[in-house]
């Protein structure tokens, strides 16, 4: 008797994404187990971010099916997938720069509720301010002190944290983080790593990350992509010792980090 495998929260099958004649993602299958950290790594141009875009609905897939939490979400737009429990952060910081940090988070919290934004009469006060959740995320992201500042005036590290906080605000089942540490200083990276690791209790995390220290330390599963396809998938220690991965990375980037 074998143990029954855990039912994956995300199952993408045969994902293809073409831009004109260029195929960015070629027949990718991806299964993500709930409450795990599943990293997608690969050299630049491997198609990681494009795969992310198709999974979160930012871009429609050319072919393939995406099942999330038992629902076929393939045909849904990004804003509709949010309501099924998918939230994402962006590789390039993408905030509401003229609005203050609290308002950024409030808008992200409110986005999950289908018709909330249709209220053209009442201001976002009282229960509509969604204060509790906003405060909680500010606290968790270490942004409480700057809650009243326009998001565009924050430091890069703070903006990256807000970027992740915006995704958390939806209280998603699965959170897709696209290079959350990109451009971060060494001092901030440790904090971000601990933060992502801590998410595993309440969420499923799908992570694109270049920092091998982070990937090797906190991932449960790693999928390596190369030229639009899946090269290998496995636990961190398997990936570290895989000859094909070493070749793909020219042997140098994969050595960092302790298991």
């Amino acid at each position, binding site marked *: 008797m074998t143990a029954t495998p855990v039912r994956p929260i995300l199952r993408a099958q045969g994902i293809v994404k073409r831009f004109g004649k260029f195929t960015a993602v070629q027949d990718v299958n991806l299964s993500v187990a709930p409450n795990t950290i599943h990293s997608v790594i690969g050299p630049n141009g491997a198609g990681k971010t494009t795969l992310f875009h198709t999974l*979160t609905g*930012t871009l429609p897939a050319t072919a393939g099916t995406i099942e999330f939490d038992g629902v076929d979400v393939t045909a849904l*737009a*990004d*804003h509709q997938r*949010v*309501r099924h429990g998918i*939230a*994402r952060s*962006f590789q390039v910081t*993408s*905030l*509401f*720069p*003229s*609005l203050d940090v609290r*308002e950024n988070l409030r*808008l*992200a919290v*409110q*986005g*999950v*509720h289908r018709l*909330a*934004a*249709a*209220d*053209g*009469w*009442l*201001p*976002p006060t009282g229960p*509509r301010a969604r204060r509790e959740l906003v405060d909680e995320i500010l606290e968790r992201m270490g942004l409480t002190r700057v809650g009243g500042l*326009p998001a*565009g*005036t924050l430091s890069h590290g703070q903006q990256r944290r807000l970027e992740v906080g*915006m995704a958390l*605000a*939806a209280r998603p089942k699965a959170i897709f983080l696209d290079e959350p540490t990109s451009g971060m200083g060494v001092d901030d990276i440790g904090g971000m790593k601990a933060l992502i690791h801590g998410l595993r209790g309440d969420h499923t995390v799908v992570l694109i990350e270049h920092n091998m220290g982070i990937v090797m330390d906190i991932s449960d599963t790693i999928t390596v992509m190369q030229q639009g396809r899946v090269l290998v998938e496995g636990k961190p220690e398997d990936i570290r010792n895989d000859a094909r991965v070493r070749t793909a990375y020219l042997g140098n980037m994969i050595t960092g980090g302790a298991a």
Partner: protein
Amino acid sequence: MQAIKDNHQWLMALAVVLAMPLLIDSGSLASEVLIYALAVLGCNLLLGFTGLLSFGQGIFFGVGSYTLGNLLVRLDLPLAAALPLTVLAGVVSAVLVGWLAIRQRNVYFALLTLAMAQMFYFLAYTMTDLTGGDNGLLGVPRPPLSILGVELLSLESPWQFYRFVALCFLVAFWLLQRVTTSVFGRTLLAIRDNEARAAAVGYDVHGLKLAVFALSGGVTALAGGLLAMMAGIAPLSSIEYHSSEMILVMTIIGGTSNLFASLLGAGFYVLSADWLSFIWPRWLLLLGVLLMLVSLYMQRGLWGVLESLWRLLRGRRGAAPDATQPEQRP
């Protein structure tokens, strides 16, 4: 106190509405200011609150003129019924135009609205039965405002008409103030700031843009209708591209950071047009220079200038600049 704070924009508009009869001799000129201010409010909703640069506001303005004109001239409807129908016609035409235009963003969005402005112009030009073609729809009357046969307000003299326009303006302004500070209005700001992120956190960006388009079309059509009543004619020029351009220029000159700026922009344009055209027929040249100055040095418009002056007067020069707008150069 909170009520004053929440409504301070509307109260400033009220002050202007009350002051105009004391400062301006002509009731028609004062009415024109408020009528264009209504149209500019509609444009500001799109440009200032949602980040949509529409070159098609003249469509809704013209649709308003023709709708109200036809309802009064041909169907002889009472004003209390004709006005809401005019607003509805604006909403419907804006949903049509918006439905197509919001499929694209930025330059292509602007181009689509421009193309449709041309189309609607030629439609109006050819549908002479409804629009009077080149001559315009003549003989638009000014019936009194009455409900169930009881006359509430006569609109015969220019200042009587001004009272009516002021009423429409203040009601519309208050409603728009309510809408722009609501959850819906705050969400529009998110779309203005970053459309991709707004979609990523769960907002139906298309639906929200269409809703604000409808709103903008409604208020702009109301303005167009009122202008037809004031002039006694729904002219072809009301739906011409020039009409779109004028509304857009007033919006930018006034400023797009709040609703009161729209009244400033319309007032400045209409009054200076009136004075300058009397002195110098080529006054539009000066307006061109002003527009350049606004684009180069005062992107927050006349409202931004007033705000800076106010700060200067209060000796708060060191105060933090308003981060919601691009910084002004010294």
